[in-house]
């Protein structure tokens, strides 16, 4: 194995591959950081270019964009409060709070370092533990998925900073949005108002763009006329985190990276879910849970290590079973097919050099990402110095392109505008946006798996207490709710 890996490294560092990898990671970071352009989309638009390439180059390029893209989402989330990808939605909370405190450099460096830690751990686990992780993932059936989704939904309680009731209302609104479209079991078109555009439900990307990016632009517009200036402007972004702070967040990052890998290895659970789950766990196990949401470094380290942890995990089912672990892996599967490789258990034996070349390029891509992330900080932070009127316009029209691009649809632009207004109103009345996103991501997973489970058990609910993993998730869910309410009460008591 080591020999094959070393061979992989020599390929990656060859003159024809390495520049491609660096370009791909850089391109991925840019794509990820632009609102609406996700890692999935970046990989998908590059897919046609891999037709003419040899298989190693093709995979190196796609994986580079994937890793860069998942990291890049956090840059816009931190600086502009507009998550570049759904996976970065959890980073907004503490990331932007830190920027408002004038610590943009710290926020960005924690994000880059944690993303690296998460991605690196995940790749190492992919290389060494794939078969084990695959067996773990295979134990997930509908009841387990339902448990995971339910546990994920309880995170709403801990991300609803100020008002639990309003957080729940936001979450329920998100769940409702997620029910729009063809019913997963009976194919009945629910709440589609007769338009075919809604048959598949609301696309998460334009909804996310609307809720975060456009509503943020609206909020920024208001303060243009106000006399007091934006506190962000006059602060240097150069100061990075200190060694002591690094040591403080290291355990959180490592734990989140490992959790992210596990979540990624379960088919159907991706970087967005991992980010919220790891955020919740970091908050739960923290000694100072009430500092989360106010700009704590762990609040960035956890979701960033968690979502990059998915990069390796998502490839576990792809490489071992031939089924994609998330949307990006689905596109990678397409790339493998186009290259004439049948993904599946035999890929390791049949195309070992290719697989180990892929592993090596993932390790190197994570290092490249860290490097670009750290040296890039002062450039990214320049965004804060762009005149506000211009940046509002740029955000608005990038959002329009992003909403359109995923599905080539003007309708999605309307969805983005509509949710921009909704997000703006929600912020006016103090309803947090994260629960809405979380619910839209997890709602369909919870519903289809609950109904599958009941179908499998022919009407019985016994799976709720007979399956150990399901029970564990349900216990965790209760635990997570109780902790969140406790924290709230303690806050009130002060």
């Amino acid at each position: 194995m080591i020999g094959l890996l070393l061979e992989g490294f020599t390929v990656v560092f060859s003159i024809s591959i390495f520049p491609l990898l660096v370009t791909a990671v850089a391109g991925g970071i840019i794509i990820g950081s632009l609102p609406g352009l996700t890692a999935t989309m970046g990989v998908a638009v590059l897919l046609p270019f891999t037709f003419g390439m040899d298989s190693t180059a093709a995979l190196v390029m796609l994986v580079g964009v994937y890793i860069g893209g998942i990291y890049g989402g956090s840059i816009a989330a931190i600086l502009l409060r507009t998550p570049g990808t759904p996976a970065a939605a959890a980073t907004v909370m503490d990331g932007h709070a830190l920027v408002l405190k004038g610590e943009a450099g710290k926020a960005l460096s924690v994000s880059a370092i944690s993303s690296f830690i998460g991605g690196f751990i995940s790749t190492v686990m992919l290389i060494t533990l794939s078969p084990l992780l695959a067996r773990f993932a295979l134990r997930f059936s509908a009841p387990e998925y339902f448990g995971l989704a339910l546990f994920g939904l309880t995170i709403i309680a801990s991300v609803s900073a100020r008002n639990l009731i309003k957080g729940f209302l936001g979450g329920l609104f998100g769940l409702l949005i997620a029910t729009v479209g063809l019913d997963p079991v009976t194919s009945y078109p629910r709440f589609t108002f007769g338009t075919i555009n809604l048959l598949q439900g609301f696309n998460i990307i334009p909804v996310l763009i609307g809720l975060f990016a456009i509503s943020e632009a609206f909020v920024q517009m208001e303060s243009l006329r106000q006399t007091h200036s934006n506190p962000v402007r006059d602060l240097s972004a150069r100061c990075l985190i200190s060694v002591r702070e690094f040591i403080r967040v290291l355990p959180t990052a490592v734990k989140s990276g490992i959790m992210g890998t596990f979540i990624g290895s379960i088919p159907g659970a991706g970087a967005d879910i991992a980010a919220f789950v790891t955020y919740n766990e970091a908050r739960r196990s923290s000694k100072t849970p009430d500092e989360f949401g106010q700009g704590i470094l762990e609040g960035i380290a956890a979701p960033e290590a968690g979502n990059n942890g998915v990069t390796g995990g998502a490839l576990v089912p792809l490489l071992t079973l031939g089924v994609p672990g998330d949307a990006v892996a689905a596109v990678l599967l397409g790339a493998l097919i186009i290259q004439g490789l049948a993904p599946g258990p035999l890929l390791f034996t049949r195309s070992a050099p290719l697989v180990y070349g892929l592993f090596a390029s993932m390790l190197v891509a994570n290092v490249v990402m860290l490097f670009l992330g750290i040296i890039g900080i002062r450039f990214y932070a320049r965004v804060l110095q762009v005149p506000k009127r211009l940046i509002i316009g740029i955000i608005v029209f990038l959002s329009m392109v992003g909403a359109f691009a995923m599905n080539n649809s003007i309708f999605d632009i309307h969805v983005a505008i509509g949710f921009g207004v909704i997000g703006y109103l929600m912020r006016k009345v103090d309803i947090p946006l994260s629960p809405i996103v979380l619910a839209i991501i997890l709602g369909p997973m919870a519903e289809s798996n609950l109904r599958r489970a009941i179908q499998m058990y022919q009407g019985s609910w016994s799976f709720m207490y007979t399956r150990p993993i399901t029970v564990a998730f349900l216990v965790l869910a209760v635990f997570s709710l109780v902790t969140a309410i406790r924290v709230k009460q303690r806050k009130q008591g002060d």
Partner: protein
Amino acid sequence: MKRLVSVLVGILLVTALLHAGGAAEDEVDYPRDDISLIVPFAAGGGTDAVGRALANAVENYLEVPVTVVNRTGGSGAVGMTEGATARPDGYTLTMITREIVSLPLMGLADITADDFELIRLVNMDPALVAVQPDSPYESIHDLLADARENPGDILFASTAAPNFYILTIENDQGVSFNHIAYDGAAEAIPSVIGGHTDFTIANPGEMIGQIEGGELRPLAVMAEERLDALPDIPTFMEEGLDLVSGTWRGIAVPQGTPAEVGDVLEEAFANAVADPSFVEFMENAQLGIHNLGADEFRTFISNDTEVIRSIVDEIDL
């Protein structure tokens, strides 16, 4: 706010003018411009892979760029509706799939195959029944016999709801399975491998990796002939069941496209489907080439419509 109003009025005026003047198109030499190929499913899936490989191959014959545009939603309804209602000038092609037949019959789409001018059928994949390697079912008959004994108890991992493969079997054999609806083969296959469901039916390309790797065991294929890649697996016919079913993909343009344009496209796609690079791709991906011209394609679709209509009628009683 004056400025805003004037710009808005301006935009509206220009819009109206352009709308009025944009209808006439000259079709003397076709194609002169980029062509879009609408793929009604997401990037990375089987339909997308066929579409991209085909677009790549046909570019050489049409001598203009052919770009794949993924328009997903409603099991293909969104993309195919857009393709059917596009301007009939030959610059918007659509990859139509079996859903063009099933969706309107179920009342989930307003368009049918008649809204298209058919160009060519490209691909057809038979349905393959597969179980876990240590499953008790050694043949399709074992499965059916168990289903007769325990109706509604055997868990079938369905790749889509409704699943016409299983309905074909159920209606013909008078059996019933417990359908667990998954979102595509990528979710259904792991549930069989993990032992959470008893069997699934999918296309060879979606399962060949798992079959060769010993994670899945095929029982029978719903085709007229055995598969080249799985020569030991019997067809339903050989097992005494007169059932053939599969999915297919073809190229179409909106109804009303000039006949000359249609001819150019039919010839170009005939060449593309026979192109060695395309053939190689399809073989690698275990996708079956089924090359039919426009007229045969029309007959093929009306036959398939009858098959699906009879199933729909059966369950709609």
